[in-house]
């Protein structure tokens, strides 16, 4: 299970585009929580994904015009324990996402 934290401008369709990246892959979306985050909005998604899909999803989200920032972490047992890793742009951040893409 993977947790994604995406900050976005709450414009028409922005959240739908984010969710569409999940639905087009027929992934199981366990939880969705969206709320205002300062001037912007943030959505936290819990999704069952393969390592390769983590990189794919992050890159696809990052290409959405209204998305500001994408972070990902493995889901831990205690909420709040997550260690967030910024992902895109994928290769700019080095080997981690590269390994994910190769997986």
């Amino acid at each position: 299970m993977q947790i994604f934290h995406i900050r976005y401008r709450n414009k028409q369709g922005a959240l739908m585009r984010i969710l569409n990246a999940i639905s087009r892959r027929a992934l199981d979306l366990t939880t969705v929580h969206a709320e205002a985050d300062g001037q912007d909005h943030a959505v936290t998604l819990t999704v069952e994904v393969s390592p390769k899909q983590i990189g794919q999803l992050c890159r696809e989200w990052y290409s959405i015009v209204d998305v500001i920032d994408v972070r990902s972490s493995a889901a831990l047992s205690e909420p709040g324990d997550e260690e967030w890793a910024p992902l895109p742009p994928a290769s700019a951040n080095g080997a981690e996402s590269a390994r994910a893409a190769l997986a």
Partner: protein
Amino acid sequence: MLKGGEIVLQCVRAEGVDLVFGYPGGAIMPLYDALEGSGVRHVLTRHEQGAVFAAEGYARVTGKVGVAIATSGPGATNLVTGIADAKMDSVPLVCITGQVRSAMIGTDAFQETDVFGVTLSLTKWSRLVRTLDEIPEVIAEGFHWARSGRPGPVVIDIPTDLLKQKKDFSGPVKFTPRSRSESPDGGFGDKIVNLLQGAKRPVALVGAGAKLSGATAQLRGLLDDLNIPTFATVHGLGAVPPQSPYYLGMVGMHGARAANMALHETDLLMIFGARLDDRVTGDPLQFAPHAKIVHFEIDPAQLDRVRPCEVPVIGNLTDTIPIFHEHLRGAALPDWSDWRALACGDERAEIDPHGLAQLTVRFLDELFSRLPKDSVIIADVGQHQMWAAQRFRSASPRGFITSGGLGAMGFALPAAVGAQLAKPETCVLCVSGDGGFQMNIQELATVHRLDLPIKMVIVDNKYLGMVRQWQQLFYQRNYAETDLSDNPDFVEIAKAYKIHARRLNEAAMAEFPVSRETGDLIDNFLLSPEPELLVFDCAPEANVYPMVPAGAALSEMVFRDE
């Protein structure tokens, strides 16, 4: 006081648009009512798909934003294939659709569809306009996203009541985006030079991005200095002059033998603006298996899709290529002459097609060789598309246009309409198959009405040829529903549209060089100042080779029927 329709057109005009393609209907009528005197010329196609493909053709040959207009409901849904095509091939496109009255939205009103929702996953950006006041900003922002970064399609859906309302209008506005830091770090130049210094078999792969960014000149200068084996995707054709001694042709499923072999053997792959479609890579696990990768790309989403790259260079190629080129100057590079001799040598020269495709390929060679300089070839989708791509020999960066990523049959004829209107003095050659031509055959009426001197070729094998080829090779010749032997007489159809048409049988190509009579026929066809259709009867079971079977490595090419 101006009506909403007039405001829309003023804002569109302010974006530099003077030509749009469309088809009127109920909800969009107020916009059409405002057309006269707006400074925006409207071209009526005979189907909304024709309009959106024509807008794409215009955009693809000019680099400007193409604009398509349609009404609500079926008008809007008929745009969907073109929108998807623009997304896949990075074409700047703005579609303006009428919507039912604001108060009726969500009630399943007559001709209501949720076009915003339908196109959400296909667009780069979209808006359903809610107030008259926001129209100028929405249009400015829509055009910005259509043309900026990696270009793409935008949908602006406007309820009909807003198009009718009046308001004081102070003029179009400019859109300023909030920036997102995507600038490349400055260190990539040295990293790439280091990789080059350690490379024994470097190659360059050129994609559409090199042309879309306007970086063709910079890229050519760089490649001339690098002098490493170079090849192009189907959308990269024309970015590198085919006469360049290091150029190997098209790469991929139906790519040149030498190009596919070099890509398989390379130890350093430099990618310039290509997203590595599966038709380019073959089996991703066997793609460039020995290579480190340097990827120049404007869209971070395209990095690492197939393989992780050692050096990503995110940014516009017009910026990043010169930076790298500067680092390269004065750097001591290895002697790659042996590698170049192997990759570009005669032993790997293209195998001339044998068998049933031979005469068709010879026909295309003859046709292309007689084209005026800087002609535009627009290919539909199928076998003829691949034959045309294989034989394309022009150095014109926007000289070969096709639906590559989506592979939308029916693209070529309406796209040729848009291209010819964009470049009235240029020879536009539309190459279709008999299947694809019938998918938008109604646009012959547009060609006739505008008297566009498009040169249309139908490569008629009386099959859905590419599907049939796969059925032959991978489905034991079970030609399920690909037989088009009862095709209409295309010459007579063209005549019904008052377009001159003639037929050429492939037997005319058996003589080599071709007879004077055949040569004159082709010349007269190409040089006519009027629209012309030429139906070329080709062998029904001609196949496209080389071919990399789906899922195989690029090195596993097939060259002839087994």
